[in-house]
């Protein structure tokens, strides 16, 4: 999902930067408020930042497709620290990866934040909220949130690529072609991310129910 350096024309890179910046600004502004409100917020944010960083640079081989890809982790982060904070930690992870690990790029940072941070976090968070509202078991809520966060990330990446590079071809056709090319790898990886998210949420609910209670009561 990392768009490599220079892949997007500069005008498109600028548009995605402009779309990402308000979320980052809001995230930075909210850190202090949340830290004062919740005693465990800072360690939880540190844990999620490390988790998103590790998960999103961990290439997982997919035997059925013969390729490798990575889960995103923004679904778990969005559930545990909220979507805006999840976008903030994702942007930090993506920046380090772009700068030192030849993964993503500085020019494509905004687009990567929008796909993995914004789309992934909100898809995961909203899925979890809706399913929890429907009184589904916690693991199922987490599973679906992780799955949809992953797929939303790659669908957004497809849209970013298609919108910038479709040229004279129809946008919808190029978007679908890219999306279909992602499916063999991301279909199983999304399921893996679902299990990861469901497992983590169930674990937290079992070991530290006070964390989830405090987060959901706010």
């Amino acid at each position, binding site marked *: 999902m990392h768009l490599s350096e220079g892949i997007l024309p500069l005008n498109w890179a600028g548009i995605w930067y402009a779309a990402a910046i308000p979320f980052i600004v809001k995230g930075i502004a909210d850190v202090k408020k949340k830290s004062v409100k919740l005693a465990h917020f800072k360690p939880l944010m540190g844990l999620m930042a490390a988790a998103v960083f590790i998960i999103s640079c961990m290439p997982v081989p997919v035997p059925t497709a013969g390729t490798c890809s990575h889960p995103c982790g923004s679904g778990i982060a969005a559930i545990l620290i909220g979507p805006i904070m999840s976008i903030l930690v994702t942007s930090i992870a993506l920046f380090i990866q772009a700068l030192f690990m*030849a993964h993503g790029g500085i020019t494509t940072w905004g687009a990567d934040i929008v796909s993995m941070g914004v789309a992934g976090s909100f898809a995961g968070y909203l899925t979890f909220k809706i399913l929890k509202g429907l009184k589904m078991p916690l693991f199922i809520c987490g599973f679906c949130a992780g799955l949809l966060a992953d797929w939303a990330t790659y669908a957004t990446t497809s849209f970013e690529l298609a919108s910038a590079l479709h040229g004279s071809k129809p946008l919808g056709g190029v978007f679908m072609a890219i999306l279909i090319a992602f499916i063999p790898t991301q279909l199983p990886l999304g399921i893996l991310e679902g299990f990861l998210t469901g497992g983590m949420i169930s674990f937290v609910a079992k070991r530290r129910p006070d964390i989830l209670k405090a987060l959901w009561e706010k």
Partner: protein
Amino acid sequence: MGKIAKNKNQILKRLLLFLIPAFLLLVGAHQKAKAQNWAGVDETVVEKFAEEGGRKPWKPFINTDQGDLLLFAFLLAGCAGGFVFGFYWRILFCEKKGKQKSE
């Protein structure tokens, strides 16, 4: 009992409706992807479509993708990330438990 069996059948049917196309898709993709040699999707999908659209990736500003340098960068990132993850994990899930026990 009849209701439970009916529900189970419905769940099984829905599961099959999802699993069969997924399986067919994966088998079809398997043949196509055999030659990819475990390349990442950033390369097989993103860069492929970008090149079709006339955009070639630039070299990274700090180019660690040279020889084993990238392996070193990933190792370092894994160690640092793992340390931070473990540090906060201990604070959230181990120390709290210990404190509660001692209380």
